């Protein structure tokens, strides 16, 4: 597999799995606006995954659906950050913000790529991601505005920080650290990043649910 395909699949898998996790708030978010927001963000992320899978599929001679649903859990290349099942609000917001911050750094490098297909898709994704970032930043403001919120956010960030570092390649991690530390006004510990390719047990569970219909109708479900 080429380095290009590996890159496309890594980002597509991040977006698909995080989209799936975000969609778990549909119907049960703390209030209606957030129910709508997380559902809409999920839809965007899965749309981004589809476009990236299509580019990878053209190279591999397969289809976006086969890449999204027919691989084994251990074949996914997503960062463990997106695999975690976090149905607790401060952790959901912390993960959302850490991912969107890392994703902005990654997208900036992809938009500047010499590969015009990758640069084009990245620029198109970034138009939508701008809304995800505004939403995440609004929540960080809100949590930082009270002692209780700050405490909950700090705890969640400390827990997720090694995972957040694992979203990016080595050379982009210092920028993530700089942005997160500047925003939170505190230093974060030197930790070993949780790398891509190591999977949380929660991924297999998510995969089982996500691919259930596809696996139960191998000839293809008709709607």
């Amino acid at each position, binding site marked *: 597999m080429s380095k290009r395909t590996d890159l496309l699949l890594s980002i597509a898998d991040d977006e698909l799995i995080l989209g799936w996790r975000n969609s778990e708030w549909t119907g049960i978010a703390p209030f209606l*606006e957030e129910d*709508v*927001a997380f*559902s*809409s*963000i999920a*839809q*965007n*992320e*899965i*749309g*981004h995954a*589809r*476009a990236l899978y*299509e*580019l990878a599929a053209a190279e591999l001679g397969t289809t976006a659906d086969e890449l999204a649903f027919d691989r084994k859990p251990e074949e996914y290349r997503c960062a463990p950050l997106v695999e975690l099942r976090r149905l607790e609000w401060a952790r959901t917001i912390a993960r959302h913000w850490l991912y969107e911050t890392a994703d902005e750094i990654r997208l900036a490098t992809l938009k500047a790529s010499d590969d*015009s*297909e990758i640069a*084009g*898709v990245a*620029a*198109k*994704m970034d*138009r*939508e991601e*701008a*809304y995800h970032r*505004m*939403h995440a*930043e*609004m929540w960080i403001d809100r949590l930082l505005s009270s002692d209780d919120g700050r405490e909950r956010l700090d705890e969640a960030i400390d827990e997720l920080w090694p995972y957040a570092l694992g979203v990016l390649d080595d050379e982009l991690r210092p920028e993530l650290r700089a942005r997160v530390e500047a925003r939170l006004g505190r230093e974060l510990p030197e930790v070993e990043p949780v790398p891509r390719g190591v999977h949380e047990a929660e991924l297999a569970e998510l995969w089982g649910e996500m691919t259930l219909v596809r696996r139960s109708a191998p000839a293809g479900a008709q709607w």
Partner: protein
Amino acid sequence: MALSHKVTDSDVWAALAEIPDPEIPVISLVDLGVIKDVAVDDGLVRIDFTPTFMGCPALEPMQRAMEAKIAELGATPAINVRLDDSWSTDDITPEGREKLRAAGFAPPAPRPAGKLDLVQLQRGFRCPYCGSTSTKLENLFGPTPCRSIRYCEDCRQPFEQFKTI
């Protein structure tokens, strides 16, 4: 249609202008600015089309509607989906923006030169019902990926705004 008539570019554009957006049917695909190019080569009609929002479920219905329209003209459609960055809400035509407003959707604000931020979106955009600018942003996200929710403090009507992207 007379058999002698050859399908022209303007026939194709006119036909595409009759296809409503599946989710906001007051506006056509041409108004929306998603048709990037049309090329007629004898009986083959090539259409370059680009998605608005990447996760929009209306993409497939739009493609099928275009294929059906071209077939009605007696030509063979070939739709090429462009996944590049060739669409922004600035591509919605002035007519399209008026149609949105008339249907109760605030049209998208023009893209700012710099980065889009929350402060710009919290501005008092005009209410499509009463024209007041005493409106506020209720939710960046709405019932479809392309919409935000706003509220008019004068006529007390919630309304949707096409997001600026």
